[in-house]
């Protein structure tokens, strides 16, 4: 409760850190903020070239199949890679000034979230100009899934950013874990490739139900199953609160460890 009140008091700080991060990211480059759109577009171009033209994947519009999973995946992996440095990278601030430390991982998560949301605009734009059609009713579920994933990523960032302060190795372990997790989530292949008997195990990976839901909405044009949404919600909440707990325990000695 105390934490919520304090975070509310420091809301302007969170917002201004998010803005600073978004603005700072492409500062100095000629195209500036446009890169937020160009980047995913170029990626989409590469995937089309590789999987559609060169590998001749039989799945219809495989590049879109991949892309709608890849965008949320990039958001998630930011928590494991750069997000783990959310506290470490601000050592100067943490050592010299008081503010609720949670602001750092949370604002980092929010700025990645905004980036993902902007990438979704690219997806819609592609749908608009290409012959593919997207059913609009399931899109109502999109914000719900996005919020669920936001809590998941926030939880993971809270954990990685606080642990990295004490164990600098984690940075490197995370990049390996990042790759491994990507292949046990249905990012590059459809979930139907997974044998039924391993399915329940497979769904323990919190990103699996999230990506399944995204693909149902943005690629298949169907409502995600209730079971999948509930699973995504439950797993995200567990990780989010575990994250708050771990971070809360570890934050007291940040200033001394940094």
């Amino acid at each position: 409760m105390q934490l919520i009140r304090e975070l509310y008091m420091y809301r302007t700080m969170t917002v201004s850190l998010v803005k600073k991060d978004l603005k700072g990211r492409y500062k100095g480059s000629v195209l500036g903020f446009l890169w937020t759109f160009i980047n995913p577009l170029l990626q989409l171009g590469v995937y089309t070239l590789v999987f559609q033209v060169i590998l001749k994947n039989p799945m219809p519009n495989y590049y879109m199949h991949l892309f709608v999973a890849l965008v949320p995946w990039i958001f998630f992996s930011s928590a494991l890679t750069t997000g783990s440095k959310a506290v470490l990278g601000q050592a100067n601030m943490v050592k010299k000034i008081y503010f609720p430390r949670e602001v750092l991982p949370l604002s980092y998560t929010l700025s990645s979230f905004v980036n993902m949301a902007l990438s979704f605009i690219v997806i819609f734009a592609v749908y608009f100009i290409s012959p593919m059609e997207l059913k609009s009713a399931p899109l109502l579920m999109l914000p719900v899934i996005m919020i669920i994933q936001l809590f998941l990523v926030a939880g993971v960032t809270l954990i990685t950013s606080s642990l990295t302060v004490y164990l600098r190795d984690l940075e490197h372990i995370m990049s390996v874990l990042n790759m491994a997790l990507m292949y046990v989530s249905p990012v590059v292949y459809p979930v139907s490739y997974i044998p039924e008997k391993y399915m329940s195990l497979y769904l323990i990976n919190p990103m699996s139900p999230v990506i399944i839901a995204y693909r149902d909405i943005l690629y298949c044009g169907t409502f995600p199953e209730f079971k999948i949404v509930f699973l995504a919600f439950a797993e995200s909440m567990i990780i989010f609160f575990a994250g708050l707990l771990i971070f809360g325990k570890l934050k007291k000695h940040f200033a001394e460890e940094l």
Partner: protein
Amino acid sequence: MAVIEVRDVKKSFKVYFDKGQTIKEKLLFSNRRRYEERVILDGISFDIEKGEAVGLVGHNGCGKSTLLKLLTKIIYPDSGNIKITGRISSLLELGAGFHPDMTGRENIYTNASIFGLTRKEIESRIDDIIEFSELEEFIDNPVRTYSSGMYTRLAFSVAINVDADILLVDEILAVGDAAFQAKCFEKMLDIKSKGTTIVIVSHSLSQVEQICGRTVWIDKGKIRMDGSPNEVHPKYLEYMGLKRRNTKTAPKSQEVKEENQEKEFFAEITKAEIIGEDGTASCKYRTGEKVTLKIYYKADPSKLDGVLIGLAFYRSDNLNCYGTNTVRERIDYINLKEQGEITCEIDKLNFVKGSYRLDIAIRSKDMFAYDYKAKAVEFTVYSTIDEVGVAKLDHKWTFD
């Protein structure tokens, strides 16, 4: 009402000789991770009342900055507790979160938000902040184009305009040029008069004296003395003098009782007198009389590397009426001879009637007092007219 309550706070740091931060090092070389538990604060307790201004003094490494960090909740005590009521602003780190590519104005928003201000609160203060920083022309330029002086001026302006209930300051009045420093100083007094509680860590005792009504002297993690600056500072200076001499002359292994040692001789004021118009040091002067201050000294020039002379006039009720020193007056550091005489002519001794005393100090470049003669001269001033106040302003009346 006490706004800061500190109860038996202890804090120690583990100082590692060779600290591993990777898994390999943590697992394999656990025996290599030898450390020394260094006690920084060893049971500190005090209360600070609302509106009080307190100076924390002590030599380097005595724990005063750690204490300040504990008060800001940057670090937490090992045992004991600290209770604080109200919003804290700290001038520990200036310009936290500044981004070089963003404009001064944008950075004000970021920086102020780190102090916990909401957008609305920042908007209501931003004009004051910009005005105080004197950067109106440059406020929409990126801060990477600022000079370092401009940068700190902006940062300081934000920090001091937070309007906190409690202001924590760590050696900051060394910001910008002399004019800006004076402005900061005035602002501090202004903040104090508004009832803000202020805690200052400083090596400059004169700063503490001017702002604070109370000094807490911390030594070896404990409170050594707690009282008014008048009581604490002379004792502190004396102790520092002994300490300094010990580190200079005595080898570390020898434990010598401090009290039994004689003071090492650097310089001494042997006599001081104020000579009035009648050519005698009568100690009674008329308001506006032309007087001459003579200071006689002995010194060891081989140990000295330029000194400054400081004067401080006090009224009998301890009001500091006038203070100055040779450095403030842009006079070069003085090279003393073995024995000599310093003369200071005062064209008009413009105090109103009352009893006064003069303190004189000979100080090194880093403000260490080689000799501090309190009450070097005590004198009374009389006047033929019954003025009131402190000083007489030369004036003429004209009636039309």
